[in-house]
């Protein structure tokens, strides 16, 4: 069986949405613990976009974003990626480090480590929910971080999706802490062979 994101049926789509929902929910809880603040989360939006529309996401191909990429190992292989707008990344780091939320100086080494740690925790909690849902062993690698144009960062997951079809599937999640809103995008990108493993483990295909 070969999975094509361009024409996923409703059932598959609902399953992927629900995974996104639960994963992002767990990530929000983990973020709340990390920040020691109440973190609310809007219902995540699952988006399937054509490649030519992808660059308009996050506000344009040239805006600066922070991308955190982790390899996924275990029964399922692939990548998980979390993308934050530069300002949002600053907000998160400033809250975490107890700095003025409006501070947008260039990230220091320790702030970059803090961002990686956020990526670690968000991706880790996302994957552990996926793991308990499916019974599969799924482990993340150490995160890699890149700060660059949105288009260039998104090209990484887009290329992986490109091996399967002509669309990108991702989950837009909005976290808020008090009046501060932080929007982040999760991309869960199973390797080609792992889609089937994932859907089978979820009982969607037999």
């Amino acid at each position, binding site marked *: 069986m070969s999975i*094509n994101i361009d024409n996923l049926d409703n059932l598959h789509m609902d399953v992927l949405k629900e995974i996104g929902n639960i994963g992002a929910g767990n990530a929000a809880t983990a973020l709340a613990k990390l920040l020691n603040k109440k973190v609310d989360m809007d219902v995540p939006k699952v988006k399937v976009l054509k*490649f030519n529309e992808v660059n308009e996401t996050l506000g344009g191909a040239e805006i600066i974003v922070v991308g955190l990429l982790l390899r996924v190992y275990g029964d399922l292989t692939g990548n998980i990626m979390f993308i934050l707008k530069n300002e949002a990344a600053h907000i998160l780091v400033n809250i975490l480090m107890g700095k003025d939320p409006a501070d947008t100086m260039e990230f220091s080494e320790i702030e970059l480590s803090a961002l990686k740690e956020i990526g670690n925790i968000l991706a880790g909690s996302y994957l552990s929910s996926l793991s308990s849902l499916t019974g599969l062993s799924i482990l993340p*690698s150490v995160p890699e*971080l890149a700060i*660059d*144009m949105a*288009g*260039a*960062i998104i090209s990484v997951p887009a290329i992986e999706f*490109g091996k399967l079809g002509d669309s990108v599937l991702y989950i837009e999640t909005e976290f808020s802490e008090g009046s501060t809103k932080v929007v982040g995008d999760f991309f869960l990108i199973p390797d080609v062979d792992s889609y089937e493993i994932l859907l089978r483990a979820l009982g969607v295909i037999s």
Partner: protein
Amino acid sequence: MENVIKVGMADLKACHHPAVLTTLGLGSCVGIALYDIKTNIIGLAHAMLPDSTQAKNRTNVAKFVDTSIDSLIYEMVRLGSNKQRIVAKLAGGAQMFTFSQSSDSMRIGYRNVVAAKDNLYKLGIPIISEDTGGNYGRTIQLDSSNGILLIKTIGYGVKEI
């Protein structure tokens, strides 16, 4: 104002002079810029994957380096260009993330550039300049009036090739 036309991800366009073709935020994808030195007809492709023969779904020719080059040349010839006069410039093919255990899929940028060179070589199209590799994104603009490819980056300056 010049006629600036955007080329998206997995997209390609060819046009007559005067025009500027641009593609924003090239990461591991490769930008293939073609220029007819006589008629000033230009073409730009933003390809994601090196090889269409490895893929099951080939409906979008602009997605692959090999088919996007063929298709771009076809479009340019249709506009009145001659293959013998076309020259190429390459940009992109970065590795945005560095993993210590670099798997093959992480080196996709490099593979895209190699595929572009191989395919252009086979077609006898000279590559007159390139700005490829590295670990950063690029926005590129191809100007039909002189064939100059302008490359903008974040933190790595602006250059013309």
